[in-house]
């Protein structure tokens, strides 16, 4: 026998209702009835009507089935979303770590700037700007890898305008999130301690 391509039918046998009832020993028993409405626009109304007339029955419309199918399709999307979120968190942590090192290494320079009259706000701005530039470079490099890869893997639907805008916003979010704490730490540098000799 050949496969029909439909899983449920492959494992089923088709026969007359009476034969099935006789085989299962439940004469007069019907487990499901397939109804076709004359007017498809009447389906919601009919289903409400049937539900109230036969409260003991399950009434399932084609729309319900479709929604179910859509839900199933969403699973991979959610999974990808989780991966994206994990990547985002890791990106924030990496950029933050790099910026913390940058601030620590440049304690003296920041002390000099503060001593010659740089406001705390100025120092904050410099560090956040640097984190932004770092994130932007990361974003551009990422795009240079992802765009050709999407074409190669025939997965260009990820390149929609919306997706691109979403990812660009995420890059900005990474920069700001990752820059603020190191920048705050930079403003706490005491110029006298930073400039102490040795």
């Amino acid at each position, binding site marked *: 026998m050949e496969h029909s391509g439909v899983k449920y039918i492959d494992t089923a046998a088709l026969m007359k209702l009476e034969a099935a009832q006789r085989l299962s020993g439940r004469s007069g028993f019907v487990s499901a009835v397939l109804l076709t409405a004359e007017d498809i626009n009447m389906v919601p109304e009919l289903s409400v009507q049937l539900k109230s007339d036969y409260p003991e029955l399950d009434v399932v419309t084609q729309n319900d089935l479709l929604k179910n199918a859509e839900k199933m399709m969403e699973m991979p999307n959610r999974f990808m979303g989780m991966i994206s979120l994990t990547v985002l968190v890791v990106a924030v942590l990496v950029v933050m770590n790099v910026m913390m090192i940058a601030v620590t290494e440049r304690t003296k320079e920041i002390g000099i*700037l503060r*001593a*010659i*009259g*740089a*406001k*705390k706000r100025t120092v904050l701005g410099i560090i956040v700007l640097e984190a932004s530039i770092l994130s932007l470079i990361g974003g551009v490099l990422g795009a240079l890898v992802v765009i050709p890869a999407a074409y190669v893997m025939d997965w260009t639907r990820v390149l929609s305008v919306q997706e691109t805008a979403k990812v660009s916003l995420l890059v900005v979010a990474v920069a700001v999130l990752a820059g603020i704490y190191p920048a705050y730490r930079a403003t706490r540098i005491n110029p*006298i301690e930073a400039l102490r*000799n040795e």
Partner: protein
Amino acid sequence: MSDKMLVQLENVWKTYQMDGVQVDAVRGVSLEIASGEFATVMGPSGSGKSSLLHLIGCLDSPTRGSIAYEGVQVSEMAESQLTNIRCRKVGFIFQAFNLLPTLDAKNNVMMPMRLAGLSKATSQERAEELLDRVGLRYRPNYLPKQLSGGERQRVAIARGLANKPPLLLADEPTGNLDSSSGSEIVELLAKLNHEGQTVVMVTHNPDAAKHSSRIFRMRDGKLSN
């Protein structure tokens, strides 16, 4: 006290917490510095002279006592106001030069002017004038590491003068220099003083003090005469 005084300190104390131990770096110092003076503070290391200079330069606030700058009380000021004074009213010169290593001489001199909000063109023009004034006209594009110690200190002096501050402070400006570059730096400071610049210098080098109009001696956080 006279209003003509540039800086007035009255019974100023500075106490630091160091590993849980209180250290009185400055213990009840009173002094006045008039416009046009070249004052030198001398004393052994650890005598509190750098701490005193930090207080005069608004890098630090006193634990007790009052400091007035151009007749305005600064001892109670918030950090942001002190930053503003450091930016416009005080020029700093340090023993270790403390130039920004990634910027060339001209951009180091421009930095305080850019921080004060001056335009790039104005700062550039004035930075060139200042480098000329300290004898570095031909080296505007050298990085600090490409300059000798004496040249670096000249850049630092030009930077200190950038926003035309009424007060120039020098913390051991000859400390990292050989004696001939050191005396050149002191002579440059003396020349600037002759041109009207008020200078307060901290040093323990007696040769450096010989150009000054007044010498304060400091020991154990107190002035002694």
